[in-house]
């Protein structure tokens, strides 16, 4: 099983959601993060305070998939999240040792079906 983490442009979340749902990945978590990226650095002023800031808001999503589905999921996600401009983000795939569904207690539950 794989644990997929993706950093995407916040405004692409809807498209990404649709792509995942199309693969029957119907649950995932999303959260606003700040992305630091040298290329997008800018200067902020607050009265006398001048400061170079490189953070922009992005959305991070996370979900689990079976090994079989992993590649297709990553591809779909990537296709859905692309705008072609800098700052489109990145996908990370981690090895997942085990999952447990809290409600049922079932281990390694049907993550494919989820």
């Amino acid at each position, binding site marked *: 099983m794989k644990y997929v983490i993706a950093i995407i*442009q916040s*405004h692409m979340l*809807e498209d990404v959601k649709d792509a995942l749902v199309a693969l029957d990945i119907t649950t995932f978590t999303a959260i606003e993060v700040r992305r630091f990226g040298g290329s997008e650095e*800018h*200067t*902020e002023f607050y009265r006398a305070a001048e400061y170079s800031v490189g953070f*922009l*808001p992005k959305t991070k999503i996370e979900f689990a998939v079976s090994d079989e589905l992993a590649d297709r999921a990553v591809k779909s996600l990537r296709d859905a999240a692309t705008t072609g401009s800098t700052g489109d983000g990145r996908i990370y795939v981690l090895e997942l040792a085990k999952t447990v569904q809290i409600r049922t207690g079932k281990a390694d539950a049907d993550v494919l079906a989820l």
Partner: protein
Amino acid sequence: MAWFAGMGAVCRRSIGTVSLALCAIVLFVPPAGAQDSAIDTGNTAWMLTSTALVILMTVPGLILFYGGLVRKKNVLATFVQCFATCALTSVIWMVAGYSLAFSEGNAFIGGFGALFLNGMEVDSMVGTIPESVFMTFQMAFAVIAPALITGAYADRMKFSAMLVFNALWVLLVYAPVCHWVWGGGFLAGDGVLDYAGGTVVHINAGVAGLVAALVIGKRLRYGSEHFPPHSLALSIVGAALLWVGWFGFNAGSALAADGRAGMAMAVTQIAAAGAALSWMVVEWALRGKPSGLGLISGAVGGLVAITPAAGFVSPVGGLAIGVIAGAACYWGANALKRRMKYDDSLDAFGIHGIGGIVGAVLTGVFASEAIGGVPGLIEGNVGQVWQQIWGVAITMAYCAVVTWGMLFLIGKTIGLRVDEKAETIGLDISLHGERAYEM
């Protein structure tokens, strides 16, 4: 201001068709020099307070109401649009707007006699209050009208273009229409009733907003992406402040602390309440849940609709206007907007335009001779409704044409809209280099 409109109406009714020229003389507010009427400190106290309340409507009322409705990345830009409009319009008004609206001119526009408030002395009077108070009260009205328009083009207009547009609009649209109704112009002469600015402020701003939304075009990804309000909590607080400030707007338009001001305040409260409940009930019935956004949208719609009517209708008339306006604005911000497919981001037209039109027409229906000296349809004066419609129509037409012209010119020169990247990143960062909230 009721004072003027009322006098205009009385004028017209008694002296018929020659009224226009005469009224223009009678109604003319001479800003250049003291009149000899004595000051009434009570009236003055109320007008000073009303002025503060009307400023409260724009900053922070409208700031919060609008700011809560936009996405997080455009909050500060929305705040800044209203705040900068407040600053800019105040200066424009002092330099020339007041003169164009209220100094001696013709039936269409005032003159240049009061540029830079020339002639306004410490002891200049307008009725029983100092002219300085009258001028500042009018300034607060001039401030809120362009600030209302910002709701239509929120999230995508260039800041520089907005400043130029607002300055021109106050001089070329607001000041003339203000002159027509309150400055001795032809609309008051014609007997059109507008107690506190339903036509001058709300219809005017609503129509300008609609034109702006059409000219500027939709927000990027409008329709495909969801744009939920980033904080309805802020919007509710803003609506509450609008409600409170509106007492100054409507009851202040009596230019006095008298029974008519009291009646205006009473119907303001009643109409706002009725409209909030009416929108709530309609939404509950049609969508299954009464939303907070609905409640405040209804309240604001009711406040808009009662604005022209405040000093002319009875409490029961006020309740009727409120209830009708709540449902009408629901339609305006929902069915109408969907059908027409324009992107009036925060419903400047759907609420202020529709509410203003409904209110202006219903003023002709519910006006009561016992309250404001002019009977309406219900009391048998059918003509008043036609006069109201005439007032609405001429204002909408004039406003639409001139606003469109201005936007066209600005679009050709400075450009109206930020580029795609700036819009995607959000106006807070791209225009002002800041965020509203630090995570």
